[in-house]
């Protein structure tokens, strides 16, 4: 964290081109990725759901990992970068986990969803419906401004 240990990437034309560890055979990595892609396409054709899911998403994870490691050079990147990426992903897991009980589930404790609820109501446009249903002088509240653009 200290500027004392800062060493010279910065100035000059080569600014920021950090020496990136051992030489890698990028073409080979690419070939592996393509092979994985083929599997993930063939997988579903077996028609077995388990195979399909594992090939689809398992391989997606592997591919993502390989791209991140070898193409983005995450493996030789500073820890801070790993941390901020992990934080971002963790937050998304949190978001999903916290929303699932409300959004993904169709019912919970003393509540349930009903997509066809509106069919049980009289078909007219809800807000005008609200307007009509409001009896004159119910609770002393008139209904001004209805349909007012």
């Amino acid at each position: 964290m200290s500027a004392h240990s800062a060493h010279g990437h910065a100035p000059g034309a080569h600014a920021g081109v950090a020496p990136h560890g051992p030489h890698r055979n990028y073409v080979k990595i690419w070939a592996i990725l393509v092979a994985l892609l083929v599997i993930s396409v063939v997988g579903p054709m077996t028609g077995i759901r388990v195979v399909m899911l594992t090939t689809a998403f398992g391989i997606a994870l592997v591919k993502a990992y390989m791209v991140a490691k070898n193409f983005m050079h995450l493996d030789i990147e500073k820890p801070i970068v790993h941390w901020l990426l992990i934080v971002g992903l963790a937050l998304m897991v949190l978001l999903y986990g916290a929303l699932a009980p409300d959004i993904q589930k169709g019912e919970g404790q003393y509540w349930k969803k009903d997509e066809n609820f509106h069919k049980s109501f009289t078909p007219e446009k809800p807000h005008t419906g609200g307007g009509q249903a409001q009896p004159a002088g119910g609770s002393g509240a008139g209904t001004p401004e209805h349909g007012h653009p």
Partner: protein
Amino acid sequence: MSHTTTVEAHAPAPHGHAEPNGFMKYLWSTDHKIISFQYMFTGMAMALIAGFMAYVFRMQIAYPGLNVPLFGHVSPDVYNALITNHGSIMVFWVAMPVLLAGFGNYLIPLMCGCDDMVFPRINRLSYQLFLLSAIVLLVSLFVPGGGFGGAWTAYPPLSAQAKYSLTPMGSTLWVIAVALEFVAFLLGGINFIVTAMNARAPGMRAFDVPLVVWFIVVASLLFMASVGPLIAGAVMLLFDQNLGTAFYNPTRGGDPVLWQHLFWFFGHPEVYVVLLPAMGIVAEIITVFARKKMFAYKTVIYTVIATGALSFFVWAHHQFVAGIDPRMANVFTVTTVLISIPIAEMCFLYIATLYGGSIRFTTPMLWALAFMAEFLIGGVTGIYLGASGADIFFHDTYFVVAHFHYTFYPIAIIGGMAGLTHWFPKMFGRMMSERLGKIHFWGTIIPFNFIFIPMFFLGLSGEHRRIYDYTHFPDLATPEMQALRIMSTVALVVMLLFQFVFLWNFIVSAFRGRKAERNPWKATTLEWTTESPPPHGNWAELPTVHRGPYEYATPGRDTDYWPQNEKA
């Protein structure tokens, strides 16, 4: 080390010729100080607009049906548009630009001892996007159908379907404006974080960085990490409004509650995004005018980080009774009440900083101390709302309104004023009038309490929010309650009038004030070591840092302060 010195050998060279002149200099500059002024002045202008809105709808509440002077009749749709945009503007177009972007842009390079932000042109772009968003929002008030009136939280289906909101263009433009504003602050935030991380002066270690910079960085981080889902949500809302999708439409497989979660997943960290810069400003001011080292500087930073981290786990306390599964509410009650731990610690440390100090009650110090006193009220009343059981009653009553005004007002107005008065000499090279400053201070603080204390009691008697005329509700139309409403409205008018004292003081001092020397407050941080106002490039030779930011009254020295850049 080696490269920085070699680079800084030709420090002044890059600039001067790089800058356009005349008015373009202000409009098109990439200088962080100019951009900071752009953000601040835009923020102040928006504050005046939102303040006027507050005046109009408070008048309507206090005197229903009255033709409001300077405005006229307030119909329900106009009233909704006013409260909606008052809220949106105060949070997104006042608090954020002034505190985060304004002070962030001004202070980070100066306090880190570098010549500018790391990406000056991206910085300029971020302001221009922000300005555009502000214009779009203001335009949205005058389109056919009127401004968006679905409250600043913009809950669908009301916000998503014109047949419910009756403001087709208004709601669309509102969403566009907010989304643009987010993008602008993403660009800004990246600049703040990277500048503070990577462009610190030689010798400045992480724990030599002044608290306000730490706080602004943490705030930007919170913003960047939380706003994403809402940007996605805003796009989905736009599609629902204009392209006939059904992301939030329950009749076609969507779910309105999804938006509430996406909104508050951002919306709660957002509170800390604006709170932290204000807390940082207060920290700087307290240390300077108490002539004291910050009490447990590192602990303060840890509490900030803890607060920031926790703030991601509390959002659903805004939705306790919004139809989320009640079992979730218990989890969020625990996290919400627990966040009082780091915040309380932080407040204690601030107060402890006064111990053994030698306090000078200058205008900035008055604002800083007032921030503490008033924010405490906002903080403790938050416990009522975090406690799920009590929130069943308090949710969406005026108790909530009073509570968050006791947090946001100290943040946006008191904190902003503290910062402005404190750094005014550095920004404009002249001193502000202390006398006018103090008049403005008392003329703001006293009415402020008279505006919002009554709202606590109105909330306790069951008054709900966003109602333009309470005579429709027999139990709420009692004379006592109306008296309270009138009290807070009158106080608001008084407070708004006192703001002209500030504007006068601000403008006159900026041109005619007594010339300020480099370091009028005898402070230790780097920004005070350059001329007032700093030239483009900030320093003829960029400083090197030798010690932490708060070396006041260090034993064995004749002066009671020890600038960070001074050689031992």
